[in-house]
């Protein structure tokens, strides 16, 4: 491939190859300060290729390929190359990651323990983890949390945070422009902007944490908290996991342990400030 970028995110090394310079240049800027893959070996390769040979020049169209491929994935415009790289890396994790139970969740750590937040797209889990990361917590990830079936520890996956719509504005109030990526407008996922986590999240990407609280946040209503039983947590987390079935008994064991040992709450919140207060209150009470 003509252009190449390599990076370590948590326990996983990636190599991204591209037929165009622009996506790699954007990645280099966004991931400034991240280490290269450990030992120089990448777990996964992502390829950003022209969908057809002539689409390298004519109306450039980026097909997301790599070690693992979704046959029906729609190509993206070259201007959205950063999103293509992000989706390619996510895809490798979702289909190829077999060491950890992979949960579609965000996470933040304090004092060696962590809060795990999962919910549908739009629940605000990314923004919430990003905000915690600016207020005394270590940001561990906004998309995937990696549960180790042997140690039951959660490993961080602190890639650049993918902010959408109102999440962008919420974070712009907290963080200066130098940590933001370019505006990506009109993508299939709406308007996006990436945010590089704070330096401590990057420097400590190798440090796992013990799960101490599971939250199911929902944005939009007045603040409310309700307990969630272990059985419901189990089912919701199997739905939030891409490799639960693939891991077989290891996945079942890890998830069973998690839901029986760790308290879980569903929280509704009207804005970021209320959400942070609710998290802090639950953390003081339960962790």
């Amino acid at each position: 491939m003509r252009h190449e970028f390599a990076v370590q995110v948590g326990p996983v090394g990636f190599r991204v190859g591209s037929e165009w310079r622009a996506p790699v240049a954007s990645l280099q800027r966004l991931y400034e300060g991240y280490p290269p893959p450990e030992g120089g070996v990448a777990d996964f390769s992502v390829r950003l290729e022209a969908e057809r040979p002539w689409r390298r020049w004519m109306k450039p169209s980026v097909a997301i390929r790599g070690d693992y491929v979704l046959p029906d994935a729609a190509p993206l415009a070259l201007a959205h190359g950063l999103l293509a790289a992000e989706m390619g890396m996510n895809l490798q994790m979702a289909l190829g990651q077999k060491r950890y139970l992979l949960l579609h969740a965000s996470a933040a750590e304090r004092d060696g323990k962590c809060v795990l937040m999962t919910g549908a797209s739009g629940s605000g889990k990314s923004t919430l983890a990003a905000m915690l990361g600016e207020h005394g917590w270590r940001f561990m990830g906004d998309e995937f949390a990696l549960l180790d079936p042997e140690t039951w520890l959660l490993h961080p996956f602190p890639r650049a945070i993918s902010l959408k719509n109102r999440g962008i504005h919420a974070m712009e109030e907290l963080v200066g422009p130098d940590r933001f990526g370019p505006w990506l407008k009109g993508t299939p996922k709406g308007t996006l902007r990436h945010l590089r986590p704070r330096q401590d999240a990057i420097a400590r990407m190798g440090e796992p944490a013990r799960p101490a609280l599971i939250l199911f946040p929902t944005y939009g209503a007045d603040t409310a908290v309700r307990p969630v039983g272990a059985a419901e947590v189990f089912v919701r987390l199997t739905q939030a996991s891409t490799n639960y079935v693939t891991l077989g008994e290891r996945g079942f064991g890890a998830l069973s342990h998690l839901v029986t040992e760790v308290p879980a709450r569903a929280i509704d919140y009207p804005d970021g400030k209320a959400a942070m207060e609710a998290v802090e209150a639950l953390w003081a009470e339960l962790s």
Partner: protein
Amino acid sequence: MRDAQLFVALLREPAGAARLAPEQWTPLLALARSESLLASLAHRLDGEPLPARVRTILEDARADAEQGQRQALWEAEMAQRALAPMGVPVILLKGTAFAAAGLPAAEGRSIGDLDILVPRDALDQVQEALLVAGWEWVKEDAYDDLYYRRWMHELPPLIHRERDRMIDVHHTILPPTARPKPDAAALIEESVPLGSGLRVLAPPDMIVHAAAHLFADGDLAGGLRNLWDLDRLLRRFGQDEGFWEELAARARRHQLGPHVRRGLRLTARLYGTPVRLAGRWRASDALFERRLLARNGWGQTTRRPLRFAFYVRSHWLRMPPLMLARHLWTKSRRQRPPMRA
């Protein structure tokens, strides 16, 4: 070419791992993964001094392949339970057969669909029993269905509605339109029972089938894996008394002598397999070798014209020219789903 050569050399001679520079590993691992041979490589490199990260990645691949085999064997068990009451022989093929028979060829072998062979006159019964037990047709298209039933060596694929796993039910090992006519009755007659009630092909027939699959059917995509099957099987059975003569006789009976001999030459060439009765290296073997190695260290396919030639060949092998023309015409005239605006 360099990465593919290096990869094949490493499978052949694992001690070469110690001489690799750190930056050589990422392309090797990507290439191995795209050929579905990462876990096989992991087994092969077991005990070699490896960089820590490489060891971790290979351990994960092995664990994943083991889990895949557990699922594949369970799927075979499910098919056995559905079909046992009929009393027809059910013969496992390919990866599931290697795993069920405990052969070294199963080590790290990735297994996709469940492939079974049953007597042709039992097909309707088998189909009925599978439908009752929860399998469903994958393709709804009437032409595809007819095409399979008339011209293929297997039923249209079925998928289980709860376990989401596919089964391919074969009645022979090559399409009836292909020039070689394997003796399906003999394959079944000579098959070997496992304790479970399921059966596998006799060792020489396993090799004949692997060679038929690789050289008489398909375009050699993923061929390095199929050739690796040949290597593993030949190393296991090659020392048995009278094996090579028996292999030659079976290959002749199934009209696949040239295909088996080509398989022996190529696996000896690429993987260093000790073989006998393979015949002399032929000019055309070099084309097959180039096709097998047409992948780079990004996992991309290379040598587009050569691959296209093999693609055309795969259709040529499968259908007489007039039939091919009619098939492609029907496919091209088929109503596409309406395009979204």
